[in-house]
């Protein structure tokens, strides 16, 4: 029983990484109805920017705030320049665009900061949290930040005019336009927010997985799995999905013999497929009903 409890705790600790990323995935899905395959790379680039700022002597929280602001602006710029002209194009073209963006960001980051692994600082320290060996203060801090972001998002979408306008623009664009909402800018705002959330996720994840241009690939796939499990329409579901994927991954690794590290990824992916087939809307998502 103690082994079980420990594994669950360790699962929650890794799950926090996925939850962070899943939150960014859901955010962009809400805004543009597509999954952004370049999301992970955008987060990686932001993390490198914050690292560079710290190298130049900016203190951690200063770099943190500057990076989030930069990412927000960069997300909007990318949307305005590259994806606004594609708004009416078929999904296929958009997916190709995401892949192109992925290649560009990955390659530019590799050129500026090269592919060696870098240490990344944590503001929370890495001593054991409350005397437990399985979860460090950094991981606890990360869980805290994720839950805080979730709470802020909830308040933003629930109680602000902009949040309401964004929800309207996402669910019924035509009607939203008729009541005077600038739906095009709401999408840009969605990109900005997703990019900012992604940058926070990146800065929280980097101390765990180390900083390098390819650090996000695996994390993004788990983030997708988490978002799908929780439901792509629900930020709360995405965070819960992240923790569940982390716990699931750890328990499978412990209790099912023969599942080594190399099988962990296929299991996460099998999870995606099973969830999509059994409950396409996810655990906490709402089914979309289409009018024909």
């Amino acid at each position: 029983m103690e082994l079980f409890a420990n594994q669950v705790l360790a699962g929650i600790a890794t799950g926090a990484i996925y939850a962070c990323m899943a939150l960014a995935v859901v955010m962009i899905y809400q805004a543009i109805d597509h999954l952004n395959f370049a999301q992970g790379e955008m987060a990686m680039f932001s993390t490198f920017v914050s690292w560079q700022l710290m190298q130049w002597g900016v203190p951690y929280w200063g770099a943190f705030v500057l990076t989030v602001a930069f990412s927000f602006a960069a997300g909007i710029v990318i949307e305005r320049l590259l994806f606004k002209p594609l708004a009416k194009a078929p999904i296929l073209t958009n997916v190709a665009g995401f892949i192109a963006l992925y290649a560009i960001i990955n390659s530019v980051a590799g050129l500026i900061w090269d592919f060696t692994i870098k240490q990344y600082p944590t503001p929370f320290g890495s001593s054991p949290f409350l005397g437990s060996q399985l979860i460090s203060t950094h991981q606890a801090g990360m869980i805290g930040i994720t839950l805080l972001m979730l709470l802020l998002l909830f308040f933003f979408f629930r109680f602000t005019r902009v949040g309401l306008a964004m929800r309207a623009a996402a669910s019924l664009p035509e009607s939203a336009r008729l009541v005077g909402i600038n739906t095009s800018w709401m999408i840009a705002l969605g990109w900005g927010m997703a990019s900012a959330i992604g940058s926070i996720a990146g800065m929280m994840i980097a101390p765990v997985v180390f900083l390098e241009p390819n650090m996000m690939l695996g994390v993004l796939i788990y983030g997708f799995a988490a978002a799908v499990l929780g439901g792509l329409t629900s930020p709360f579901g995405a965070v819960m999905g992240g923790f569940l994927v982390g716990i699931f991954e750890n328990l499978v690794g412990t209790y099912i013999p023969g599942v080594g590290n190399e099988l962990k990824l296929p299991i996460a992916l099998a999870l995606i497929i099973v969830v999509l087939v059994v409950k396409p809307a996810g655990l906490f998502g709402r089914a979309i009903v289409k009018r024909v």
Partner: protein
Amino acid sequence: MSAAEEIVTEAPAVEAVPKRAMTLGYGTSLVVLAALILIPLFVKNFIIFQMTMLLIYALAVMALNILTGGSGQFSLGQSAFYAVGAYTSAILMEHAGMNYALTLPIAGIVCFGFGFLFGQPALRLSGVYLALATFALATAMPQLLKLGYFEHWTGGVQGLVVTKPDAPFGLPLSQDMWLYYFTLAVSIAIYVASVNLLRSRSGRAFMAIRDNEIAASAMGVDVALYKTLAFGVSAGITGVAGGLGAIAVQFVAPDGYTIQLAISLFLGMVVGGVGWLPGSIVGSAFIIFVPNIAEGISKGLSGAVFGVLLFLVIFLVPHGARQVAIVAQQLAAKLKKN
């Protein structure tokens, strides 16, 4: 976040391409064919090898094109089918000592079965969800091939070495050239079969599903059957391409069939023009040669150059090579009038 969504405001996932617009005219086809037959006679072995790969990837891109351009379903997982085909051929040749030409139909049938079965769960998914599920399949495939249980057959991480076949009947052809003409013959056969498939009753059923699933089922099209069938056919052709690829490269290993390959094939389809079968060869040329060109322009930034080129294609010719072909045709018609 409401539970209802207006379907009218949505851009269609795949634009409707009429079936006559899916192929080339008779004359143009013959010119392309003549070029494909004659060029290898005048170039070096390495270029012949590259042309073989061009045809093989063109087959794989065309298979995806039948799935997406024909029946309107996505796939980012074609590399998985390609890998299964390659391994089927390699294992049959190396462990069972079978003739290389005989392994191809078997690879095709195995992949058809695999694709048909994978099409069953994929039935419940559409659009971005289907892309995600197939993406998962493609990422999982190399890991599955590395598994210890199959190591006796697959050679594990090391992979398998395949012997290159000689020209039969003592024909005075180099191995590369023989393999090229063999691949060309197989490709033409599959191309003709695919064009006929899309013109047949089944092809019309695919297109009806692509254009409007509900209307198609109301007309009596068995949507579930034809959707899985499209997956099966696409996987089968990809499997044959994979088998040919294994013979041409003389080597199969799990890391040759990563998600990178699936993404390349997808890009090849977009560049070639979705739903335009001859575009497959243009798309294939894009994915084989453009990374090299990008590397030539700047070593460190090859990924970025590739991405920028891709964006240029998306913005300037969103319908890919098909659009270029149509513009060229109109120009030719104008010149004739004058």
